[in-house]
C-alpha cells in the first residue's frame, strides 16, 4: 500500500514540474466554460425553461461535467508505450501488479488536475456565472461518492483500451473513437435531458449514464434519496464487468507479448 501511495505522490509531482502546462490547463477550461455559457445563453434565448430544465441548471451541469471529464483524462498509452519501447519486460518483473501501478499513476494525475486546473478555473469562472448549489450538504457527499464510482467506470474502460495494445500496435485510433463515444453519449457535450428520446433510452441501458449523468442527477436532487443506493449498485456493476473483461484480456495478452527492441 505504501508503494501505491508513493506512486501517486511521484505522479503528482511529475505533473507539477511543468508550470506553464498548469497555466495552460486553466485557460483551456476557462475557454470551454466561456463558450458553453454563451452558447447555452443563446440557445435559451431568454426562455426560462426548456424541457423542464432552467439555464442555471444547464450551466451547473456543464461546469461540473467539464470538471470531471477534465480530471479524468486517463493516459491510454501507458502499456503501448512500454510494449513499443520493449520496457514492458522490466515492468512485468516488478513486484507490484502493473494494473495497480497504472491506477496509482492515474490517481496522481487526477489529483493534480483537480487541484491545479479545475479548482482555480472554477473559482475564476464563478466570478462571472452563477451555479445552482447542491440540494443539501448530505447530497453533496453522496454526489462525491457517485463521482468516484464514475471515475472507476471510466478508468476500467480505459484499462480495456490499453489491453488492446497487446494485439494491435497503435491504440491511438481505438482510444480516440472511445473518447468520442463517451463524450457524446455520457452527456459531456450535450446534457442527457436534451437528447432525443430514442437516444435517452440507449443511454439508460448502457454504462454511459453511470459516468456523469447519475452523479449530476444526485447533485441536482433529481433522484430520490432511497433510489441512490440502487444507482450506486448499478455503477459498481459496470466497474466489475469492465474490470473482469480487462483482467481476462490482461491474462491472455501477457502470454503473447512480442517486445520490439528494448
Amino acid at each position, binding site marked *: 500500500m505504501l508503494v501505491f501511495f508513493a506512486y501517486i505522490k511521484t505522479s503528482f509531482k511529475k505533473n507539477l514540474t511543468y508550470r*506553464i*502546462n498548469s*497555466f*495552460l490547463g486553466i*485557460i*483551456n477550461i476557462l*475557454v*470551454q466554460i*466561456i*463558450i458553453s455559457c*454563451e*452558447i447555452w*445563453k*443563446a*440557445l435559451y*434565448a431568454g426562455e426560462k425553461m*426548456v*424541457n423542464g430544465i432552467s439555464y442555471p441548471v444547464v450551466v451547473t451541469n456543464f461546469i461540473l461535467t467539464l470538471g470531471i471529464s477534465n480530471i479524468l483524462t486517463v493516459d491510454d498509452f501507458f502499456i503501448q508505450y512500454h510494449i513499443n519501447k520493449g520496457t514492458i519486460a522490466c515492468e512485468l518483473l516488478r513486484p507490484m501488479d502493473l494494473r495497480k501501478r497504472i491506477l496509482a499513476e492515474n490517481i496522481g494525475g487526477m489529483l493534480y488536475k483537480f487541484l491545479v486546473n479545475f479548482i482555480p478555473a472554477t473559482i475564476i469562472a464563478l466570478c462571472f456565472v452563477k451555479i445552482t448549489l447542491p440540494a443539501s450538504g448530505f447530497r453533496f457527499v453522496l454526489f462525491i461518492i457517485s463521482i468516484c464510482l464514475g471515475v472507476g467506470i471510466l478508468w476500467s474502460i480505459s484499462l480495456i483500451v490499453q489491453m488492446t495494445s497487446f494485439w494491435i*500496435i*497503435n491504440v*491511438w*485510433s*481505438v482510444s*480516440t*473513437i472511445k*473518447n*468520442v463515444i463517451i*463524450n*457524446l453519449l455520457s452527456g459531456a*457535450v*450535450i446534457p442527457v435531458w*436534451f*437528447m*432525443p428520446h430514442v*437516444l435517452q433510452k440507449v443511454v439508460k441501458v448502457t454504462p454511459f449514464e453511470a459516468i456523469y449523468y447519475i452523479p449530476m442527477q444526485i447533485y441536482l436532487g433529481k433522484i430520490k434519496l432511497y433510489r441512490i443506493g440502487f444507482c450506486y449498485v448499478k455503477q459498481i456493476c459496470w466497474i466489475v464487468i469492465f474490470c473482469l473483461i480487462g483482467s481476462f484480456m490482461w491474462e491472455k495478452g501477457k502470454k503473447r507479448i512480442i517486445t520490439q527492441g528494448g
Partner: protein
Amino acid sequence: MRDTIDIFTAYAKTSIKAWFQYRLDAFLKSLSVFIRESSNAVAVYLTLYTFKSIHGWNISEMLFLFSLLFISYGILVIFATGLREFESVVKSGDLDRFLLRPRGVLFQIICANSDWFAALGQGGAGIVMFIFATRNTDIHWTFINVIYLIFAVLGGIAIQFSVFLLIACLNIYIVHTENIREIFYWNLRKFACYPINVFSGVIQFILVFIVPFAFVNYFPTCHLLHKQAGSQFPAAVYYLTPVVGIILLMLTYLFWRISLKHYSSTGS
C-alpha cells in the same frame, strides 16, 4: 521552376509512402480523425434537435460554418505540417541541415512533411458536412458564388498558414511554443465553430483583429447564406477574406526572413 515542381513531387511521394507504411493503421487513424471531427457536428445536431436554432442559425447553416473551417484546415495541413512541428526541427537542430541546402528553408519545410491523416480525416469530414449543408440551404451556385467560395477557402488557408508561420518564427526566439499555439490557435478555433455574434465584444474583437478566424468561416458563410453578420461590422468584411490572407502572409513572411537571420542553433 520545373526543378521546383520535381522536388515537390519527390517530397510528396516519400511523405505519402512514409505515412501510409502501415495501411490498416493509416486507415484507422484517418477514420478516427474523421469520426472525432464529425462528432462536433453530431453534438450540434443533437443540441438543435431540442432547440431548433442558435441565434437564428439552423443546423444546415451551422454545418456550413463547420465545413469551411474543416475543409480549409484539411488543405492547410498538407502544406503546414512542417510548421506545426517546427518546434522539434529547431530543438533537434535539424534546421541547420535545412539552412545548408540550396533551396529556401520555407520551401523545404512545406514539402518535407504532411499530416495526411488529418488532411483526409478533417478534410473528409468537412466535405461531408458541406454536402449535407448545401442540400438544405438555398445557395444559388452561380458562377460568382463559386468563385467567391474558392477565394474564401484560399483566403482562409492563407490566414491560418500565417498564424502557423508566425508561431514557427517565435520558435526561433523562444524554442518552446507548444503552449502559445494551444492558446492562440486551438482554443480560439473552438470559438470559430459558432456564429461569433453569439459571443461578447472582447471575443469578437479577438476573432476579427488578433487571430482573424472570423474571416476564415464566419463572414464567408454569412455572405453565401444571406445572413446578417451583425450591425457592428461594415459591409466590406464579406469580401475581405483573401485580402486579409494575403496581407497576413506577406507580413509573416517578412518576419520569417528577419527571424531566420537571428537564428542561432540550439547546438544539439
